[in-house]
């Protein structure tokens, strides 16, 4: 799998069909339901998506109330249980201890409680997932709007830039950036935002290209609306549905990329708990027995991305039931 954000959804460059609006008598007898309400109704009826949403809410709660895990277990995030007084988090040989009543998910190579660290790790995954995705979508939308609306030379330059960006061996560059920017949250967000917007930009551009030929845009222009007004007031609202769908599907991908960057040592440096970094640390010792150090952070990561992906699929089906926008 490549880490091109565009892998997520292959999107055809076609504009959204406007919802069918009943006319004349029909409009009087049929209660008007906005496309938003219809989409929400469809989403609520999607059982898998609703279960996934429940899981997402649980994970968000776990991140927010992570200190509660410390209170319940009595184990700090950074606390190393090296003995001699119980509970003991390291075997006499300095190995992690397996899951038990004292440490529900076992301990890591430093004798810390894995459960507590997973709860705190959720904070980083969710934070990066949401903030970096927001940057990606914002930059992509702005560039796509500009390229699609202004056309000509602006479009050519921006389109070439996107081509160039998508041809960059993303992970290699991310790793080499470590020599300029020290590893951490900022680097992760910069890397994802910088390399991610191209795919969004391409989609928005395609949509804008067809929307700007519509009659109501012509009407707006005839009324004397300037380019900014047309772009943000007349065109942007029409892009909201695809953007919402794209954003929900981008969040899990961003979480995967964050974990991968942390695994490669470009993410949040230790001792701050982070799922990718925990898996990286586990990878050097799990073949000596402590499978729980590898398996539990991996499960946390996969459950989170899976829940977001199932929910994202549901959102896509709700906004685009005929499958016209997205493959």
């Amino acid at each position, binding site marked *: 799998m490549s880490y091109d954000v565009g892998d997520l959804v292959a999107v055809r460059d076609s504009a959204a069909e406007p919802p069918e609006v009943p006319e004349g008598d029909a409009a009087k007898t049929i209660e008007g339901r906005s496309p938003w309400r219809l989409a929400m109704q469809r989403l609520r009826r999607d059982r898998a998506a609703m279960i996934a949403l429940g899981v997402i809410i649980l994970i968000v709660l776990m991140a927010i109330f992570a200190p509660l895990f410390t209170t319940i277990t009595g184990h700090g995030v950074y606390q190393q249980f090296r003995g001699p007084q119980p509970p003991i988090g390291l075997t006499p040989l300095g190995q992690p201890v397996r899951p038990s009543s004292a440490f529900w998910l076992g301990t890591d190579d430093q004798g810390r409680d894995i459960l507590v660290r997973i709860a705190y790790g959720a904070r980083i995954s969710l934070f990066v997932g949401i903030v970096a995705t927001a940057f990606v979508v914002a930059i992509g939308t702005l560039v796509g709007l500009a390229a699609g609306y202004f056309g000509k030379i602006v479009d050519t330059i921006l389109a070439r830039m996107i081509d160039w960006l998508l*041809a960059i061996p993303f992970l290699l560059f991310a790793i*080499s950036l470590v*020599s300029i920017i020290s590893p951490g949250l900022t680097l992760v967000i910069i890397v994802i935002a910088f390399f991610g917007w191209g795919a969004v930009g391409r989609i928005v551009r395609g949509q804008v290209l067809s929307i700007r030929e519509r009659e109501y845009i012509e009407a707006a222009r005839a009324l004397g609306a300037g380019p900014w007004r047309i772009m943000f007031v007349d065109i942007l609202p029409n892009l909201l549905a695809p953007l919402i769908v794209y954003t929900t599907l981008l969040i899990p991908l961003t979480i995967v990329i964050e974990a991968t960057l942390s*695994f490669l040592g470009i993410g949040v440096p230790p001792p701050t708990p982070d799922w990718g970094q925990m898996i990286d640390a*586990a990878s050097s010792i799990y*073949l000596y027995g402590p499978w729980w150090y590898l*398996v539990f952070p991996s499960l946390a*990561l*996969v459950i989170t991305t899976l829940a977001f*992906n199932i929910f994202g699929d549901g959102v896509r089906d709700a906004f685009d039931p005929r499958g016209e926008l997205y493959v």
Partner: protein
Amino acid sequence: MARFLIRRIFQGLIVMFLMTITVFIIFFIGPGPSAVARTLAGRQATPAQVAAVSHRLLLDRPYPVQYGHFIWLLLHGNLGYDYYHDQSVNSIIAAAFPITLSLLVGAAILWLTIGVLTGIVSAVRTRSIWDRSFTTLALIFYSMPTFVLGFLLILGFYYELTINHINLFPAPGTFIPLTSNPVQWARALILPWFTIALVSAAIYTRLTRNTMLDVFGEDYIRTARSKGMGERRVIFRHTLRSAMTPLVTQAGLDIGALVGGAIVTEQVFGLPGVGYTAIKAISQQDLPVVIGVVLVASAGVVAGNIAADILYAVLDPRVRLH
């Protein structure tokens, strides 16, 4: 056709040229030159010794001179020499490439087979139990980061089997060249292949299923069915062929991206392929090796794109290359 190819190759060369400049800039903004000179000169080195090392590696020359030197060598088919052992970058990459190529070819065959077959079954038997299980599995593997799947496969199929005295797979990190023993070659690569393939196949399952469902709605499929054509022929000759085009584009991009090394998989399994070499070189600030790998990687991406465009025209006669 020829004009199209020439233009695309030219565009690709520009992209590669921009890449080398970007790598140079990152290297010189960062601690690159001084870090390399200091490491090489050793801990006890005097400033004069450090300067001497810099001088030998041309690191004290103006950047355009260094870049010009690199381009000059490149025009002679030489990627330069690494800073630490004076080994030629050509030979470093030549040593790593067979490993990456073995990974890439095996994984691509697996993921295309798995992805397309499950996609066809899902599309032909929509909403059946097969469709549901395949799409669910696809979503699970799609949600799984490559390194997580790799470690879980090692844990489940290497570790658990080996401690129970079933030596099905050799220890991770083993690579046996195809030419010396094909069976051992495949045995050592099965887990890495599946790591890449399962994660990638997920995209192809969904893509195949959805495009085939689209094509099933076309008029010419109805015509083919109504004139009594067998279902198998409808599926393979008519539907699959037009459903292939988005798959080919995706495959071109994915395979091209892997030429620069399956960085994560090589890291997880400790296979010294191109990606593994690149990570080592980056951590040592070994500029010539990094540039060499970046060139190979972007050449892969560019070639993958061009190959996809050509195949596109072969598969779909409506597409003409201009």
